[in-house]
């Protein structure tokens, strides 16, 4: 049953890889469903990761690190909101600006504060979110299928992993079963109608970008204080853009977002597994090809070859109240 074990291992690491994507993807979902495009997910994750690494190193508390990540990321989300909602600036340009500022600022401040080549200090285990072993995980390890699912997939993850997967039904419920969700979806499709109903379009959009900031903070904290033991320069490495790809892939819906992120997580896990390993009949698959698959799939999807990705109608358009 060696291959069963291999599948369990790949699944386990696929889940770990998909978690930051999932947080960021849901973050983008709130923002874009409200009509604010966000290509600054990457930047917000990065400031979140940096804030978490810094505060966890200074206080020794993972929870304070998480809080700092959320605050820092929300600040940048509000900046995006200020530019694109209040001042009707171009949302793409604002997103690019945020990515630049985040990349530069985290590296510069890291160097200034810690003098470790842009990194934050190595965190001790009690300043991180460590894996939680479920009861009897080791004992059940030997049982085929059930034991492997239990011990290598359900057990042995850190608490943020569970948060990420809880955020999916929560987002679904918020979006489709609450008044807030109805309004949020409406401002992304037809802001004029929402305005006519006497609801403030800017207020709804600010609420949405704040949700986006909170979730990007989780994504960043996961990278620096759960998956690794500290912040490393540019550690998001394009994950914000893969999350964006996943969001398009999921057609801006929460449950498909989870599947898209898991798929991309599997690709990453398999890519690492397959590095340098020849496959019969194909030969060695270049690792770069595996890494490019999410982007290629997204382009193919956008071209309408596998279904059609229809973005929220009012996305990217600043709302101008009629005079």
């Amino acid at each position, binding site marked *: 049953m060696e291959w069963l074990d291999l599948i369990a291992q790949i699944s386990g690491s696929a889940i770990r890889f998909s978690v930051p994507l999932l947080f960021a993807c849901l973050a983008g979902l709130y923002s874009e469903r409200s009509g604010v495009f966000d290509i600054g997910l990457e930047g917000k994750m990065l400031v979140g990761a940096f804030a978490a690494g810094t505060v966890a190193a200074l206080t020794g508390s993972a929870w304070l690190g998480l809080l700092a990540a959320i605050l820092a990321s929300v600040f940048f989300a509000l900046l995006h909101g200020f530019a694109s909602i209040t001042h009707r600036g171009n949302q793409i340009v604002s997103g690019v600006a945020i990515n630049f500022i985040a990349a530069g600022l985290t590296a510069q401040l890291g160097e200034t504060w810690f003098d470790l080549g842009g990194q934050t200090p190595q965190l001790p285990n009690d300043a991180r979110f460590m894996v939680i072993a479920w009861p009897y995980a080791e004992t059940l390890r030997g049982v085929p299928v059930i034991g492997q699912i239990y011990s290598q997939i359900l057990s042995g993850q850190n608490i943020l992993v569970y948060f990420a997967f809880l955020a999916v039904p929560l987002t679904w419920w918020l979006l489709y079963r609450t008044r807030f969700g109805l309004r949020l979806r409406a401002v992304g499709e037809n802001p004029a109608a929402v305005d006519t109903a006497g609801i403030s379009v800017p207020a709804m959009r600010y609420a949405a970008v704040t949700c986006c900031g909170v979730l990007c903070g989780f994504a960043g904290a996961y990278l620096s204080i759960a998956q690794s033991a500290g912040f490393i320069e540019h550690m998001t490495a394009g994950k914000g853009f893969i999350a964006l790809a996943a969001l398009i892939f999921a057609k801006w819906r929460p449950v498909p977002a989870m599947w898209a992120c898991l798929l991309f997580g599997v690709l990453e896990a398999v890519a690492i597994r397959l590095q340098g390993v020849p496959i019969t009949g194909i030969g060695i698959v270049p690792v770069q090809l595996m890494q490019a698959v999410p*982007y290629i799939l997204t382009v193919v999807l956008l071209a309408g070859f596998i279904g059609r990705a229809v973005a929220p109608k009012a996305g990217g358009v600043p709302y101008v109240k009629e005079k």
Partner: protein
Amino acid sequence: MSGPSRELPRWVDIGLIPLINLLAAFLVTGIVFLAIGESPVGSVAIMLNGAFGYGSGLGYTLFYTTNFIFTGLAFAVAFHAGLFNIGAEGQAYLGGLGVALVCLPLGFLPMVVIIPLAILGAALFGAGWAFIPAYLQAKRGSHVVITTIMFNFIASALMIYLLVNVMSPKGSMNPETRTFDPNAHLPLIHDVFAGLGIEIASSPLNLSFVWALVCAVAVWLLLWHTTLGYQLRVLGANPAAAAYAGMKPQRLIIIAMLISGALSGFLALNEIMGAQNRLLLEFTAGYGFVGIAVALMGRSHPFGIVLSALLFGVLYQGGADLSFERPSVTRDMIVVIQGLVILFAGALEHMFRPHIARLFSGSRLKAKEA
């Protein structure tokens, strides 16, 4: 946008407002400098000296300026047609491949033959990489912003693969090609001047700077003095009007993106053929994204783009000198400054406009509002 913009004199619109936005960006930059314990004024002095104070510094400034002229023009051409090409990074990367595929095998040819071929290679590969997003936008309505982002990443993966597995010389562990033959190096400006008997400081500034200026003039002629340019601008201003006037929006979208991609590809002339003389990883170094800021600062006009490219060139070279003289300032600081300029000059460009508009046409406008 809304009313007040039309009330403003032209020099306010294209001169004063960008300047105020820039000042706001620099003000925030100053705060960041204070936060890391550096004097903003002292830093500016070092940066200006680094950018203009001595010959080779000036050469480097113009070298960086060359990159920004290309990517700024690239963004502007697409922007005039209403397209947001943020794929200059990827297009420039592939442009490098085009340059290398000319320079590696044909290095024995005389320079006068190889330079036009390399220009052609850069243009074809840059435009080729822009073609797919362009085609998908034109024919299938896929948003060009998203597809060009994705193409940046695909380009990066492709180039890593090529440089690691295919194009690096046998036995070499470095992900780069061999150095081009001397005929395939763009002449450096200081060598050109030395040939004329004039001694100037050495720097990587090369003939692609001249080509960048030629491109700026060409883009200006194209946009404002040809039918095609007129059609592109109509498409950007009002796609429906363009369609009703019998223009072919799909064709125009593709043409605009091809020109944009070709201009991005020229970045490789400066970096690969002019400075590095070999194809290597990551040579685009974010210049493609900075092109967005350059174009927006320059109000998408070639003349403005050359000026704002110079500003960014100063930031780059001055920033490099600053990080050398003040170890506490890293090169990442330049990235922060660029980000702030993009934020204030691009995303927040309307922030000060109503206030300025009120200042200029104060009572008249107020009377109208009341």
